[in-house]
């Protein structure tokens, strides 16, 4: 069995307050294997985004990672990296798609310039090399290279989200973190984008950490799923077990709160 890409051990993160500290993440441990699509689910405020930020050390005060916590990426201790090492680590090893990533593009730069920014800084590419690589990356997310000369506002929300994903994949990261990547998009576009990610991770063999509160979507996409409640990881299982025979009462409650499209109407069902 191969070594995990990401290994998190006893991760505890507190938000430091003037009087009391708020424990956002409590003693969380899990692994993500190479090429694995791993999901982290839970309600707002359960700590799932805090974990995502901590993995690429993007957490800011008052968030504090407690001593004894360990984050290993490909065997490297992420919490021990210095500033220069961090700059090389981010994007090359771990890339992150934020919740409102489609609004994270710079509105006054063309798509090509935003690709060039990354490819020049991290890979030392020339304009010509960067243009070719950018066209290749756009093709991976089904966008025509004509779009390189567009500004973000000329692209639809779904297209902007795919452009951000393409930029994230520019340096062949080992792990792609997606924090609610499609929450602002409608179902058809969401399905297109996640289907594309699923194909790409098989072609390029990167791992995915996928964060959402939509359990049904998570079961469709993920190999394994972790369920979080108030900072604790209460259940980790393969997707089918989470769906067919959830072990933790909270996982069962989450399922019970989701209206379904087919099958029996839910408890207290609609009159329709």
């Amino acid at each position: 069995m191969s070594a995990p890409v990401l290994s998190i051990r006893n991760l505890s993160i507190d938000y430091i307050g003037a009087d009391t500290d708020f424990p956002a993440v409590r003693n969380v441990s899990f692994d993500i294997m190479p090429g694995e699509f791993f999901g982290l689910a839970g309600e707002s405020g359960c700590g799932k985004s805090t974990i995502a930020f901590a993995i690429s050390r993007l957490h800011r005060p008052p968030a504090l990672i407690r001593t004894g916590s360990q984050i290993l990426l490909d065997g490297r201790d992420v919490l021990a990296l210095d500033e220069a090492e961090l700059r090389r680590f981010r994007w090359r090893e771990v890339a992150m798609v934020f919740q409102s990533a489609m609004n994270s593009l710079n509105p006054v730069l063309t798509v090509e310039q935003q690709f060039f920014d990354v490819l020049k800084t991290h890979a030392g590419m020339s304009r010509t090399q960067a243009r070719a690589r950018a066209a290749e990356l756009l093709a991976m997310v089904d966008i025509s290279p004509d779009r390189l000369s567009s500004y973000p506002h000329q692209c639809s929300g779904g297209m902007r989200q795919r452009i951000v994903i393409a930029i994230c994949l520019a340096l062949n990261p080992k792990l792609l973190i997606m924090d609610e990547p499609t929450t602002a998009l409608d179902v058809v576009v969401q399905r297109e984008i996640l289907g594309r990610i699923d194909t790409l991770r098989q072609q390029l063999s990167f791992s995915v950490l996928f964060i959402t509160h939509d359990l049904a979507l998570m079961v469709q996409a993920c190999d394994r799923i972790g369920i979080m409640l108030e900072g604790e990881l209460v259940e980790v299982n393969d997707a089918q077990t989470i769906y067919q025979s959830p072990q933790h009462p909270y996982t069962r409650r989450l399922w019970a709160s989701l209206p379904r499209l087919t099958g029996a109407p839910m408890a207290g069902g609609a009159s329709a």
Partner: protein
Amino acid sequence: MTDTTPILALHNVSKTFGRADRPVYAVRSISFALHRGRTLALVGESGSGKTTAARLIMREYRPDAGQLLFRGTPVGKSGLKSYRAAVQMVFQDPFAALNPAHTIRYHLERPLRLHRPGLKGAERRAAIDELLARVKLDPALIAPKYPHQLSGGQRQRISIARALAVDPEVIVADEPTSMLDVSVRLGILNLLNDMKRELGLALLYITHDIATARYVAEDIMVMYAGQIVEWGQTSSVLGNPQHPYTRLLLSAVPDPDRRFAQTASGDELNHIEDIRRRSALPQTQTREITPHHFMRPLPA
């Protein structure tokens, strides 16, 4: 549909934006009716014209063509005040819909003062308490609070209470749960269901989440590119979808029984662009599938 006269009906209503040489057909000749004690869901993706339809009903926009009938009478300048009292809206964003500088009591007192001037001091206070109790919030605890002190779900309950303050007959709810956590969503949907049953309200539920539409609505309409492409009883439309766009929309809804890898080659998801392009063409014919289920066939 029921055989009683609808409270509110739209007849071939159209709305176009943009310049004459580059028109955007936001709503193209749509017709539907809202009945007492029933919920009609309007589903479709972003940009399909759902919100424009809501704004036409709220008289934020005037139709370029077609008619709005309220209890069988065309809605005009006269009687607009009673129309506004009868038709209320619940918005998508519970954070933006309330004024951060005022208490919850103020938010509920205002519509009561404007639309029910007969109520005096103590009666009005009792009415506020009753409204809060109706949306299952503790009046003593909630009334003096400011919006920022409430959760998203509580704020959406306040929006519903505010809509109910004027004794409306129709409520238009535009994505009322899309910004709430899954665990809170169901409470709001149940509340809307209770209101419909207890107060005999006619509800227009606008959403892109078809599973929640199934949960609250007896009837459903699927909208794409400004046209209603398929409509009828929710069970029939979702159980036996006929229009290619309805099928595409349904196949894209997250379903734990279908892994991504299992998409079949004949699946709508492999023809997204083609279905979108053809579904945007004008479709003027109507085909009856059953007496309670209709669609617009694509032009050949």
